[in-house]
């Protein structure tokens, strides 16, 4: 019995002259060659275009487009999973930019620049006076590793509510820097006010040590570790997108998880 093409899962046969086949083959391989050249050209364009902060501008635009989607979708109910304090793991003190000289908690102070109203200075006790929040969650490094850390500190949202001058809307961004501005990060306000964003002064139940950013650091669980700036010396509220240490080195400015 003859099996039909349909039963054999295939298209029907056709008859073609050899010249026709040769012409079509030549034409289609030519199209393939042109398409391959166009693809190489497109890749060259996307990777060799003029750079914006170490990233070719077409890729920088797409990173910003990705940011727009992530930021638009972000809500306070998007949470990193939490753990018990006894589940903490070793945390590598990865970066030491701005931490080269030791700091004494007594000498340290935090400069707050609200913009529009005069800057002022806070002590660690001012932050510790805010409601304390303990948060044991995953700390994700942009390098790919992660560890479970128990942070203790004040929510950034409580800090902003208490210290940002009342009667004015919060600006779109926050800029945080080490005392000498050797290391600095920019945050969008939505991420800064997220419930898992802390101004942390404790790690694993003890005051922060020097390598982990004593006396006060940021612990922002919904972003890569590059945003969790250690030894904060300055917090500035601003409506212009702030510069960011690693974004200037070719990383995504938003770095959201």
């Amino acid at each position, binding site marked *: 019995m003859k099996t039909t093409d349909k039963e*054999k*899962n*295939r*298209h*029907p*046969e*056709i*008859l*073609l*002259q*050899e010249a*026709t*086949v040769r*012409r*079509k*083959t030549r*034409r*289609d*391989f030519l199209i*393939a060659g042109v*398409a391959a050249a166009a*693809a190489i050209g497109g*890749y060259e364009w*996307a*990777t060799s275009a003029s750079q914006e902060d*170490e*990233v*070719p501008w*077409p*890729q*920088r635009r*797409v*990173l910003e487009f*990705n940011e727009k989607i*992530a930021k638009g*979708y*972000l809500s306070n109910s*998007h*949470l*990193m*999973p939490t753990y018990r304090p006894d589940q903490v793991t070793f945390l590598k003190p990865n970066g030491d930019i701005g931490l080269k000289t030791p700091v004494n908690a007594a000498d340290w102070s935090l400069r707050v620049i609200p913009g529009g109203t005069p800057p002022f200075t806070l002590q660690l006790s001012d932050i510790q006076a805010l409601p304390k929040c303990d948060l044991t969650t*995953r700390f*994700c*490094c*942009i*390098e*790919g*590793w*992660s560890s479970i850390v128990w942070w203790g500190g004040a929510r950034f949202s409580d800090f902003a509510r208490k210290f940002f001058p009342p009667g004015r809307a919060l600006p779109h961004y926050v800029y945080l820097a080490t005392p000498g501005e050797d290391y600095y990060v920019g945050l969008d306000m939505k991420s800064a006010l997220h419930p*898992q964003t802390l101004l942390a002064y404790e790690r694993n139940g003890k005051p922060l040590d020097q390598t982990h950013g004593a006396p006060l650091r940021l612990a922002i*669980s*919904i972003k890569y570790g590059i945003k969790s700036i250690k030894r904060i010396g300055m917090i500035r509220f601003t409506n212009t997108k702030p510069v960011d240490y*690693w974004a200037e*080195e*070719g*990383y*995504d400015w938003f770095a*959201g*998880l």
Partner: protein
Amino acid sequence: MNAGHLRPTRMDSKGRPTPILNREYPVIQESSQKNLLVSTRTHLDRRETVLMHRFRLKHLLAIRWFHWINFPLLFIMIWSGVLIYWAYPVYHIGPFPVIPKWVYSALGMDYRLAEGMALHFFFMWFFVLNGLLYVAYTWISGEWRFLVPRSRSAFRDAWDVVLHDLHIKREPPAQYKYNAAQQISYSAIILMGAGSVLTGLAIYKPAQLAWLTFCCGGYQSARCIHFILTLGYLLFFVVHVVQVAAAGWNNFRSMITGYEAVHENNG
């Protein structure tokens, strides 16, 4: 076989087969040469004899485009993924790192994490879009019927294909448009693509898509699956290229032109 049911075909300007008008239908006969048919057209004053080759449409135009667009995109996703993996190359097989550091330095692929991330999160859009369009097109065109294994014996048949290809078993397995091994691997590669996208999203947004990360077994598990799938593509690629080389020119050409010459042994 009876050649009378076959009709000569022309290509129109877009390469689509267009039947020759009814009044021109010539007499088709078997040729003494294998795989050829003789078309004899009688005009008022002369007889014209042309050799006709038997062809069959194998790959639709859109599917050829999806395939060839996917190839460089998948390569770029793997390349940029390897640039990213450099920063935390933890996976080992026994005591051996899957990608040793010296490979990175030899290929100049070290210290390029930022570049890798920007590339990965740029080209992911094209990779996902092309994959979605492929699946949608395969579904709508009905082409999925050729690709998805639907026979109960698919896995046993696929094993026969493997044995035959390794020259362990002599008799050739049933070869329709795709054999069972092809159906399983071409379907699996699509599922793997979906797996890469999902585990990729789970690593990319473990807070915003915490449920997805949870479904992937957690952050570290998602990264591990994402990596293993990449090794799967490399394995697929090696086998695929070897098989295409073994299958020969007629098969390769069909992925460019769409048409495959029909031989008695695969008819």
